[in-house]
């Protein structure tokens, strides 16, 4: 383990995060809230000092690293980033307990959108901005941003792939162009472009400037922190529709947008993941519309809310226009199932990812066929290409670990004594980075009532879900820290 390199990457991440805090500080200054500006300034100073020390002590020419370092660096960076990111909430006194502030910012960075606040509107604008912006940062990933802005030495340039693989969601992470830095730049370029488009459409619908930035950040990162207590409920139908469409767009694999720019329309249409994604979303919208049509004045209104909620849950955003807690059980069950499916690999969404679900379905089919014809030679294909055995094994292993962690967290938070429905949906919503669950943690509820232990477990679940488990598990393995390889 190249510990100095870990230090360097963590130091750089903290430094960059601190730089992004300058914006909320500026907002606080403009709003004339000196105390809040000071709390941001203090945090930034702390982060600068921390990263300066870390970078100083981890000076080293050895920049090569392997999968192990990539995983560990990603895990540590995210943890340290969250520990610092929570400080402004705590210093400003608007979230008086540090554990709560930590829960809130982890929920932000992991694009979960689960909150402990019962009254969001009480927060000052700088804190609201920072909460929403953390979604945007966490959506595409801080380390991918690092790869885009920090030039690497040519000799070790290949190693960065380990960081990208550890941070980017999906069963197999590839590059768009031969140079990793270029790939990272393209990804962020597309991300910024789409976010800007979303802001423009929201502004056109008459949303206030501050709101449209925050809502666009929440949409782009598929996070779900809103700045009103009613989430998206008070906005006009047009604004809700814009958010519906953009949530779905941010749930699509970003490499497809790159192909769009390259005008390779055929390969986009060939993408089985995209087809399944659209199919699942379309099917669910249809079923829920039929199921809830009696509750609303017109079928169109039912469709509108069904579409919003499906795209919000499936892309793991977690905005709400209505209290879906009131919907019939069938609709809620569909939403619950969608929580697990999640968005496409390589998007900003969480969950299992559509491509993993697709591979799982294919391997189920293969197993059944194998039972019928034991000698039959079968190859799993996706997008016309052969999926190698290792990838499908990894998907199976991922599902297994996923279930174990889900169950363990469920049992631990049950200590608090809430109903099974609340607990299972809380764990599911946090682990899959969605935000709202059902019952006490539903669209109108929050996580404030859980004990500190449960909050920590849920925060850990959010990180595990965002980083797809292994980068954090690696940190726990004694192998990682032994001096010998």
């Amino acid at each position, binding site marked *: 383990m190249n510990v100095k390199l870990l230090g360097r990457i963590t130091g750089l991440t903290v430094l960059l995060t601190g730089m992004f805090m300058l914006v909320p500080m500026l907002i606080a200054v403009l709003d004339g809230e000196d105390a809040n500006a000071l709390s941001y300034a203090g945090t930034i100073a702390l982060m600068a000092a921390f990263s300066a020390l870390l970078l100083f002590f981890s000076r080293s020419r050895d920049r090569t690293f392997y999968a192990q370092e990539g995983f560990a660096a990603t895990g540590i960076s995210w943890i340290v980033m969250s520990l610092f990111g929570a400080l402004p909430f705590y210093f400003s006194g608007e979230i008086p307990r540090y554990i709560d502030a930590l829960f809130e910012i982890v929920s932000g960075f992991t694009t979960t959108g689960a909150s402990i606040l019962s009254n969001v509107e009480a927060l000052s604008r700088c804190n609201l901005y920072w909460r929403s912006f953390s979604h945007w940062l966490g959506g595409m990933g801080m380390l991918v941003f690092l790869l885009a802005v920090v030039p690497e030495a040519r000799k070790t340039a290949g190693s960065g792939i380990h960081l990208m693989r550890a941070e980017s969601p999906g069963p197999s992470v590839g590059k768009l162009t*031969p140079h990793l830095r270029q790939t990272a730049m393209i990804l962020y370029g597309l991300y910024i472009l789409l976010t800007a488009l979303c802001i423009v459409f929201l502004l056109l619908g008459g949303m206030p400037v501050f709101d449209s930035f925050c809502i666009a950040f929440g949409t782009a990162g598929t996070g779900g922190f809103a700045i009103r207590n009613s989430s998206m409920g008070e906005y006009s139908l047009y604004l809700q529709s814009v958010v519906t469409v953009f949530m779905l767009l941010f749930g699509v694999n970003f490499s497809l947008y790159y192909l769009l720019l390259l005008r390779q329309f055929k390969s986009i249409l060939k993408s089985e993941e995209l087809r399944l994604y659209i199919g699942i979303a379309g099917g669910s919208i249809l079923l829920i519309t039929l199921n809830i049509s009696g509750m609303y004045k017109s079928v169109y209104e039912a469709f509108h809310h069904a579409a919003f909620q499906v795209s919000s849950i499936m892309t793991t955003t977690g905005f709400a226009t209505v209290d879906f807690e009131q919907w019939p059980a069938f609709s809620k069950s569909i939403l619950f199932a969608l929580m697990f499916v999640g968005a496409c690999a390589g998007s900003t969404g969480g969950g299992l990812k559509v491509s993993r679900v697709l591979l799982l379905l294919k391997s189920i089919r293969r197993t059944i066929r194998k039972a019928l014809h034991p000698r039959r030679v079968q190859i799993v294909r996706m997008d016309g290409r052969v999926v190698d055995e290792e990838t499908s094994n990894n998907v199976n292993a991922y599902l297994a670990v996923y279930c174990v962690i889900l169950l363990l967290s469920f049992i631990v938070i049950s200590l608090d004594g809430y109903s099974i429905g609340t607990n299972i949906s809380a764990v599911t919503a946090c682990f899959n980075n969605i935000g709202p669950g059902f019952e006490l943690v539903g669209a109108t509820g929050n996580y404030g009532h859980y004990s500190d232990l449960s909050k920590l477990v849920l925060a850990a679940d959010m990180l595990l879900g965002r980083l797809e488990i292994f980068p954090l598990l690696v940190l726990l393995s004694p192998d990682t820290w032994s001096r010998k390889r």
Partner: protein
Amino acid sequence: MKIIIAGDGKVGLALTRLLSQEGHDLVTIDSNREIIERDMQQFDVISIAGNCASMETLKEANVQQADVLIAATSADEINLLCCLTARRLNPSLHTIARVRSPEYIEQLYMMREEFGLSLMINPEREAAKEIFRLLQLPGFLKRETFAKGRVEIVELRITEHSLLENVILNHLLHVLGCKVLVCAVVRDGKAFIPTGDTMLYRGDHIYVTAPVAVLSDLMKRLGVTRRKIRHAMLIGGGRVSYYLAQSLIAAGVRVKIIEQNADRCLELAHMLPEASIIEGDGSSQSVLESEGIAETDALVTLTGLDEQNVITSMFGSMQGVPHIITKVNRMEFTGMLESLPVGSVVSPKELCSANVVQYVRAMQHQTGAAVTLHRIADGRAEALEFVINKHSRYIGEPLRNLHLKRNVLISCITHQGSTTIPDGNSCFQMGDTVIVVTNREAPILQFNDIFA
């Protein structure tokens, strides 16, 4: 530049490393998934699994937008088909194919146009040529020629009681009595460009630039024996052996090849009627002794196993063979070999990868690119030959007035056929050939890059 490397074996790997360090957009194609994974982890490249000769795979590698394709799979036929297909998909593509079968060489020179080949590389033949040149002028560990063969950079090892031991380079002319220039020194595995105050120590490997005419003088002064080689023993009967034996026989050297495989022995006997082919294990002491290893003038170990080559060479050195050349495929361990008595070390893949890099650089900078590029000191430094044209800066300016980048040395200037080792008063004119030695990490792509 966008470069596709098809087939990522030994040569492909060396090329991937060199070209990705120069910052090109690389796509590698290989049918082996493990190799693909290794490439993705080690280098900043995109890797594609598939058959590089199929149109589908080539399209996936975006051959339509590529500038250069290098086909270096283990099969000549696939390489040729790959180049042919790629050229058809992209007529402006430059293609480089590795072709190693002796049977194809002649017809391919004839059919280069049809196959659309821009360059053919043959690592074994390059290696055989290199070994042959070393055997012609034994005593130097390595020889690189520049300026149409007028200048050479030779590698020497400073041994005990050498004339050069503990000599400061400023006194070199005084000690040797002939004007040569030490352009690179390898000490403890590190290469550096020396200055006038550098002192040479025992165990150093030095790279000396000298006009060819001065070389024999240099050898005499250094007391290196110059006995002509009359008899050479080649261990291993692969392609390198075949090419080398051909050249040696033509130069009147008696050749003995020891090869284990009976069928291959028959083939060799058929192709090389003048050589004596011995069927036997070249690593066995009794075979070597009975075939007269003690009496031979030169021992060249060319089997496919690096370890066996090294051991056999060490045995030869123990038996007192005056000239030994060892072929090593994996260059990772050459640092260790410097201290072992294995004579000169030759690596086929390094030789031909330098050719390809030179070709790519020349494509990139049509004017002012290096005419010749040799990687010296096991790839830790480069010697580049430039021709001065009207775009070159500081023409006619004495060298002492120029500010060169660090670790760059102008080691030789050839003016109208006469070669000089430059000093502060020398200058270069239009049309001159200048040899520059550097161990900078960032490559020197054109002549004007050497100035600070």
